[in-house]
């Protein structure tokens, strides 16, 4: 392990050359992929790592005594260690593999609900959460007669911190705080560390939805001080169907299992089952071994670059897009927080986001339109949906210019 190894200099052309899909044409035009907040594209190294598993070491993990099973297990556990190092967890067994952020948060809500929630308790979330960080908590609250409280969102798309602090300080009933590190719709980077510190003073268990953070920020779970941290692989250059729930060892030990099945047991009799040790207690069934190996490779790929330089590049794209889009008549940006990742959500007077998305697609540009799985946030801003461009390290300023020109053309057609 050489974490201090020399990082490759950031050269967007060199990065682009590693993404085979960027050579594709859409409607005869070069693909401009600005839907990275939904899922990012994958570098060749990740695609190769995933297919090499199938081609050379495909076997089930942890059970076989044969060579392939040993190799597959070693490869999967190496990925776990890579992730541990990347997010600075204390132990590899604090890294639980799931199918994605949604599964991670469902695990968290189901298990923490059972462990902690009683009638009239409260779970605190924020008004900018993705449905995946709302609905599992609603289900848990319904199950135990607890209540969901919501941190309001300011006009710029940030948490109203004075209200957040009072919701934490004034309520002895608050047992769980579950908030996003970065908003998928607005791009806002939330002050999670500060809020977690407040919550922990009062013994509140803290859960962070890091789906939009992991590819763009340095995530250090010990520095954040959170109890649980969820993220997906596929938004961070990794295969789909992979995800992680990090949890503090002491809490994970106390949490009851979510799904039962193979892998997660110690001893099974019809009278009583005892569970496997961490992390396997939470990993019932055969995991997405190939995907996990790809996830490990993607993290190592990201670590080969200076994340700061990647973030600076994405920030440049955000600033350029913001400045240029605002020259379009009637265009309004939803989410103008000071601290943002490369996500830009906007509405245009007299233009429906579906029409705009369709006409951008005709010009080879992939953006997301609609409510982005944040309907309460849309209601907060009084819009039915937005058009969202979300950048990754392989995007370029030239692509931003193509999108702005294409948007101008679409608006002309639609007015």
């Amino acid at each position, binding site marked *: 392990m050489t974490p201090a190894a020399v990082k490759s200099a950031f050269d967007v052309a060199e990065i682009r050359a590693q993404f085979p899909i960027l050579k594709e044409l859409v*409607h005869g035009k070069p693909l401009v992929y600005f839907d990275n907040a939904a899922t990012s594209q994958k570098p060749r190294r990740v695609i190769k790592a995933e297919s090499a598993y199938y081609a050379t070491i495909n076997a089930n993990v942890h059970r076989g005594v044969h060579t392939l099973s040993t190799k597959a297990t070693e490869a999967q556990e190496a990925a776990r260690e890579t992730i541990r190092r990347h997010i600075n967890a204390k132990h590899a067994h604090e890294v639980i593999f799931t199918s994605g952020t949604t599964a991670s948060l469902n695990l968290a809500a189901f298990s923490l609900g059972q462990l902690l929630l009683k009638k009239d308790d409260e779970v605190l979330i924020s008004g900018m959460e993705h449905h995946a960080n709302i609905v599992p908590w609603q289900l848990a609250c319904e199950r135990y007669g607890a209540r969901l409280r919501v941190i309001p969102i300011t006009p710029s798309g940030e948490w109203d911190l004075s209200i957040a602090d009072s919701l934490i300080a004034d309520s002895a009933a608050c047992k769980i705080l579950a908030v996003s590190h970065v908003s998928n719709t607005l791009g806002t980077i939330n002050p999670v560390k500060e809020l977690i510190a407040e919550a922990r003073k009062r013994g509140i268990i803290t859960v962070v939805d890091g789906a939009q953070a992991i590819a763009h920020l340095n995530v250090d779970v010990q520095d954040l001080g959170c109890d649980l941290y969820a993220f997906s692989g596929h938004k961070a250059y990794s295969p789909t169907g992979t995800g992680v729930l990090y949890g503090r060892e002491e809490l994970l030990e106390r949490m009851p299992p979510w799904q039962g099945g193979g892998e997660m047991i110690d001893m099974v009799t019809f009278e009583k089952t005892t569970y496997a040790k961490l992390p396997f207690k939470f990993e019932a069934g055969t995991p997405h071994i190939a995907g996990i190996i790809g996830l490990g490779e993607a993290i190592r790929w990201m670590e080969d670059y200076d994340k700061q330089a990647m973030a600076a590049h994405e920030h440049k794209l955000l600033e350029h897009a913001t400045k240029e889009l605002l020259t379009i008549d009637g265009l309004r940006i939803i989410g103008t927080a000071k601290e943002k990742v490369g996500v830009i959500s906007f509405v245009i007077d007299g233009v*429906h*986001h*579906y*029409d705009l*998305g*369709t*006409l951008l*697609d*005709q*010009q080879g540009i992939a953006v997301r*339109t*609609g409510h982005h799985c944040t309907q309460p946030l849309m209601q907060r801003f009084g819009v*039915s*949906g937005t058009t969202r461009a979300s950048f990754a390290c392989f995007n370029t300023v030239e692509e931003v210019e193509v999108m702005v020109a294409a948007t101008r*053309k679409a608006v002309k*057609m*639609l007015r």
Partner: protein
Amino acid sequence: MTLAQTQQELIDEFAMFTDWQDRYEHLIELGKDLPLIAPEHKTDDNLVRGCQSRVWLHATPQNDHIHFTADSDAMITKGIVALLVRVFNDRTPQEILGASTEFIDRIGLRAHLSPNRANGLSAMIDQMKRYAVAFSAQGPKA
């Protein structure tokens, strides 16, 4: 004009356009000819599920035919529903149920038929066919 002839007419109309821009501009133009749904029928019950934009579709039996009116808050969607209404309007339930939707493919709008949840074209066709089934079961009304 038969239903098949109307479909052919649309195929011929769209065949004149070689680039996407003209094709979509024509689709948007078609939306302007859509027989608009009466405001009192613009209810949640008449919303077509499965569209990212909102589409209202209303059907009334007229003798043995079905008369459709519709609207949408998005222009392309409005054009698409107008296209369908032009083909299916004032036809018998049997004509509607027996109609092929292959013409969509032939006018270059196949992408709108994909199972992607954002696209509502399949949902609109299903809804029109459901009206046809309902009205054919009821029989012609006076």
